[in-house]
């Protein structure tokens, strides 16, 4: 209980630091939202500019603005979007599902495909296909995600136009739940593959290295000696330990994944938080941007907590120190 409370306290402290740091960093950027609004209006009088700055509280000292902001978010009030002129929370809640869907789809593709490729090349480390996987991984990891997205767009939306060019759904609408799901899936393919490309590469390398290590362990030799099939050895015994580095990275990389989502959402016009963040930066929409950063921090923190919990499930030696890991004990005595 004490540990949990101290963890929660550190999470709250961390989130506060994130809010304060982001708030101050934004102030360093030249220009403010009123300049953007005035720019889009095609100009305005000095009086109107001053009136707008006062309306959004931008005429107050930075620390006073910060104190007001912190006071508000404690009560769950993330303010009004300066650009969109509506509550930030409703804007975020409107966009959040699209980002979560994109991230989950990308992660699933990356973990499944990356791990599979890693296992494959660990089993045949000297094979031609293994070298191909290595090459593919290097290329995938080196290519900037927006470039990959643009290339996929050119290939599959222009040269072979089999996927839609933008958005999450067909704008003219589709009929029925099944039609809607198919439509979203059709729109999801290119953004999800783009976002996952870096992680497929990374996870295939990680799982390859880890599986090579695990496959040389004594308990794998024992399993083989018992006459278990190669499939049982790999998926029943080796993978459980081999996947731990992937899970570790999965938690750590949530922040990077969100950053990647910003680029992918912009390229594919995906209506998620990342695109909203990009638009908010360009428009200096402080309340929206700060709230997105806050929620991003929450997502990263939660992902890390979940990763900690997942360790316990995958490898009881890590998560359940108070009691012996039964599976391992069983394996050792077999």
């Amino acid at each position: 209980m004490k540990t949990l409370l101290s963890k929660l306290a550190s999470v709250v402290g961390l989130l506060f630091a994130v809010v304060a740091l982001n708030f101050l960093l934004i102030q360093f950027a030249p220009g403010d939202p009123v300049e953007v609004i005035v720019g889009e209006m095609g100009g305005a009088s000095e009086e109107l500019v001053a009136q707008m700055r006062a309306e959004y509280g931008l005429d107050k000292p930075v620390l006073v603005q910060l104190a007001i902001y912190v006071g508000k978010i404690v009560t769950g009030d993330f303010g009004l979007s300066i650009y969109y002129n509506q509550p930030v929370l409703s804007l975020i809640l409107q966009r959040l599902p699209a980002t979560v869907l994109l991230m989950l789809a990308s992660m699933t593709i990356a973990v499944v495909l990356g791990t599979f490729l890693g296992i494959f090349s660990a089993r045949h480390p000297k094979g031609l296909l293994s070298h191909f996987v290595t090459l593919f991984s290097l290329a995938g990891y080196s290519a900037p995600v927006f470039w990959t997205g643009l290339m996929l767009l050119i290939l599959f939306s222009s040269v072979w136009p089999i996927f839609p060019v933008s958005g999450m759904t067909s704008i003219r609408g589709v009929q029925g739940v099944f039609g809607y799901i198919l439509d979203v899936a059709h729109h999801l393919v290119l953004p999800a593959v783009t976002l996952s490309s870096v992680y497929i590469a990374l996870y295939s390398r990680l799982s390859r290295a880890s599986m090579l290590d695990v496959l040389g362990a004594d308990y794998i030799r024992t399993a083989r000696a018992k006459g278990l099939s190669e499939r049982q050895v790999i998926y029943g015994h080796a993978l459980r330990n081999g996947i731990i580095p992937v899970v570790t990275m999965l938690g750590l990389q949530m922040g990077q994944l969100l950053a990647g989502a910003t680029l992918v959402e912009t390229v594919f016009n995906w209506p998620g938080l990342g695109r909203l963040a990009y638009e908010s930066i360009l428009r200096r929409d402080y309340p929206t941007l700060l709230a997105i950063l806050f929620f991003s921090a929450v997502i990263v923190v939660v992902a890390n907590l979940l990763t900690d919990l997942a360790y316990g499930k995958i490898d009881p030696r890590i998560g359940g120190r108070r009691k012996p890991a039964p599976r391992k004990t069983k394996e050792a005595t077999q």
Partner: protein
Amino acid sequence: MKHFRKTAFGALAGLALMATSAMAQQSLLVGSGEVPRHFNGAIQSGIATAMPSTQIFASPLMYDENWNAQPYLAKSWEVSEDGLAVTLHLVENATFHDGTPVTSEDVAFSIGVIQENHPFKTMLAPVTSVDTPDATTAIINLAHPHPALMLAMSPALMPILPKHIYGEGPIQQNPANLAPIGSGPFKFVEYRQGEYLKLEKYDDFFIDGKPMLDEIIVQIFSDPANLVLAMERGDVDMLTYMAGVRDIARLQKADGISVTNEGGDSIGAINWLAFNTKKAPFDNVKVRQAIGYAINKEFYLKRIMGGFADDAMGPITMTSPLATDEVEAYAFDLAKAEALLDEAGMTKDADGKRFSMTVDYIPGFVEGGRNLAEYLRSQLKQVGIELDVRTSPDFPTWAQRISSYDFDMTQDAVFNWGDPVIGVNRTYMTSNIRPGVIWSNTQQYSNARVDELLEQAAIETDLTKRAALYKEFQQIVVGDAPILYLSDLPYSLAYKDTLEGLPTTIWGPASPWLDLHWTE
């Protein structure tokens, strides 16, 4: 796998069929890179709001392709002999989208809202009151004659708001700004911020048989390349306000798609180079003129703008009845540029260098901004000027630099907005030198005669006399060269060939799309 293929193919075919049936219902899908803050054009300027706002709200007048006012909510109008009163006679059958009749009270209310909240303060500044003797008569009283009022009554600038909806509470926070109710040809259905806007035909629209479309959907794209690709693929039916030269050229080659730059003259978007005239050596007119002569405008128009942009010779868009071409043309002449720089005391040093300067540009504008700046770097080197191209990462950064006078020379694109009183005066009036305000007189240019001419022209009701005043103004300003005028922005409309009745009036897409329809 076979089964999956069949299912996927079936789904795709289904989607295609649905799109086809949408077309049969006269549905138009427009691609746009503009994200509107809201749809209330009475308190917000800019094309992002104006395009949807002009479909949702009607206004007293509208304009044709030749700058002629046409009846709209006002079936007729009169200007008093002394020019101090403009009487509007409204149509009797106009209703708002909630069924309430449009009355003169709504006109008076809207004028008050615009006067108080619209950024273009000069637009209705002389209006002292609006009388409403009956439900269909509105008399606009003026402190002095105000010819700009006629263009100010256009759909893009004077949407008539229902008083019973927008009269409650502070107008900036009114929820109807995002779910508008107007009396225009289309009524609001749905808006998902930054994604799409849906409008549908208003069946009780006061002009019989209009509009011809049943539905307009505006899909918003964050990436311009994506937008062009969507048009090329046929995913969207029309693109408005395209200014990218490469995009225009690309879509011109696409099958089944046409591109036109007709219409939108009154927007009058001019691409120019502006000097900080209070900073040496740009406080010397000869230095500014020398840079003008050192620029090969033909190269700029043909190579950089790909031949899609028309020449701009002065501060008023060339298609305006108030524009003149009898101004200094700054024909490319390097010898003259060198001579002027010598006269200004900016002689060459041993390395052939006269001085260094920076040029800024609006980020995101590739050809007329970044490419122009890069061209200028090599071009000005020929006359001994070392030019440093300063890139701003985003619009607010550029706007802050320019509005705080932290610049030497900048590319800029500024709109006329119909009458010079609305969009031109702000750049040249001494009284509009306002630190911190972008698109004010950020050049800090001051000329007493120019101020006088602009003030006189603002109240001159005789078109010939007015044009003469503006002619002198244009000649002085072009000669003083606080700004070097380069071209208009090649704003173009890309559309599927089977569309007809395009919005090609002087307000272009920022006017009601009454005649737009599919022929097939």
